[in-house]
């Protein structure tokens, strides 16, 4: 049997609000109904059912309210859970920080290791550049009496090897490392390769420190030291004599590097004809790519 709906929902709502069973638990207690509301309640079965339901709902709701003992037990239980969760939360908070710190430390350690490896490898590379065994290769010239330094794990390309060797030759002529080679002006306005203050000590001392014989080779600073000293002193005659001695060596690279330097010296002193012949010969038959290229550059500049 379905319940008829209330013809005046406004009064039905007023009755429910007035009842406030949650406060009074009984409609009869201290509730003053107007005559209209009282008449409506008498005649409307729907409102009577609604009020009775509201009373039962409140009654059922409050019948199972937690007791003080239950609340105390819950408080203890929650405190224990909070302790366990707190430990987990602390761990969860620390975990990302630990991961971040680990990553940062790893990056720093990696960068430091890379820097250390570079610094450690740099003198070895320099020594390799100045070692006759590393530069002469299969070219003419006596094999050195010392053991060759260990070769790098990866063989460099042939072109790069030539470039390194050429830089070593030119730098060796100035008594410095290849990175210190600069172009400087001379009074004759001709450009010649002149040394700038060496940044790294000549690695020729390394074999001596190991008790080995001094090496003479393309990149050896001692080989080119007389030329460099004469140029520093401005004594071009002495420099030319030293270059003549080097140009007579069997080592093709040292010989051609000395011939190139001698031709540039001749150009700076106005002796164009022998310089042009020498440069043309070097441009065609120079021992390395760099020597040939620089000879061609000198010819072009001359023209």
């Amino acid at each position, binding site marked *: 049997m379905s319940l008829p709906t209330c013809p005046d929902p406004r009064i039905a709502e007023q009755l429910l609000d007035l009842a406030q069973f949650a406060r009074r638990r009984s409609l009869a207690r201290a509730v003053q109904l107007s005559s209209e509301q009282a008449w409506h309640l008498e005649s409307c079965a729907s409102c009577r059912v609604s009020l*009775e*339901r509201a009373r039962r709902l409140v009654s*059922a*709701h409050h019948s199972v309210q937690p007791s003080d003992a*239950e609340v105390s037990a819950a408080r203890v239980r929650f405190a224990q859970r909070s302790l366990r969760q707190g430990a987990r939360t602390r761990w969860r908070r620390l975990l990302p920080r630990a991961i971040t710190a680990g990553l940062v430390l790893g990056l720093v350690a990696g960068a430091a290791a890379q820097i250390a490896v570079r610094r450690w490898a740099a003198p070895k590379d320099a020594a390799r550049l100045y070692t006759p065994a590393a530069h002469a290769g299969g070219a003419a010239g006596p094999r050195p009496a010392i053991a060759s330094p260990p070769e790098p794990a990866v063989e460099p390309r042939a072109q790069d090897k030539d470039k390194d060797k050429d830089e070593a030759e030119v730098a060796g002529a100035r008594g410095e490392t290849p990175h210190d080679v600069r172009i400087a002006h001379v009074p004759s306005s001709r450009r010649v390769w002149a040394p700038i203050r060496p940044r790294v000590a000549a690695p020729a001392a390394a074999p001596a420190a190991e008790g080995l014989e001094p090496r003479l080779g393309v990149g050896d600073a001692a080989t080119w030291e007389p030329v460099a000293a004469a140029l520093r002193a401005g004594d071009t005659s002495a420099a030319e004599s030293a270059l003549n001695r080097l140009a007579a060596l069997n080592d093709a690279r040292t010989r051609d590097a000395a011939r190139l330097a001698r031709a540039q010296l001749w150009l700076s002193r106005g002796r164009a004809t022998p310089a042009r012949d020498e440069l043309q010969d070097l441009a065609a038959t120079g021992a390395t790519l760099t020597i040939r290229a620089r000879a061609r550059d000198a010819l072009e500049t001359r023209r």
Partner: protein
Amino acid sequence: MPTPEAVFGLVYRQMRALAGHREFDDLAQIAAEQAIRALPGFAGRSKLSTWTFRICHLTVLKHDRWYRRWLRRFTLTDDGELPDRGDDGPSHEGRLVDVERARRLHTALEALSARRRAVLVMHDLEGLSIDEVAEIVGARPIAVRSRLRDARAALARELAADPYFGDEACRRKEPP
């Protein structure tokens, strides 16, 4: 200044009314921790019960939002376990009847939306005034009254066939 024990008891009872059986333990713990943590900031501008009711209400709303998002990804295949009710043991028959009626009431309440359920519980079951409910839920009184009207109608529909709260049962007035 109210003690943390008093705040905890208040929150626990209010959350029982608002949340019913559904994840009551977790919600009560979260709300109680928030209330006790925020207790030094309680300025007394409103009643303590209003203040704690607001914390409970916001906690339930937040949980409902999370639960809706969770349901979009997962499907429940079990009703889950009810929390341990401590002293709800079968002490006598009347107590069992009360517990069963309360369970049906809270089941019907859970069918309502969180906002309607909060308004109906606070006003009709807990006895708060419309203005107090409006302050707690952060709405205007007229909106609260509208929600209350809808909630009453929806609850009546939910309980229409109930053997204790249903229309037929409520025709026979029970002795108070």
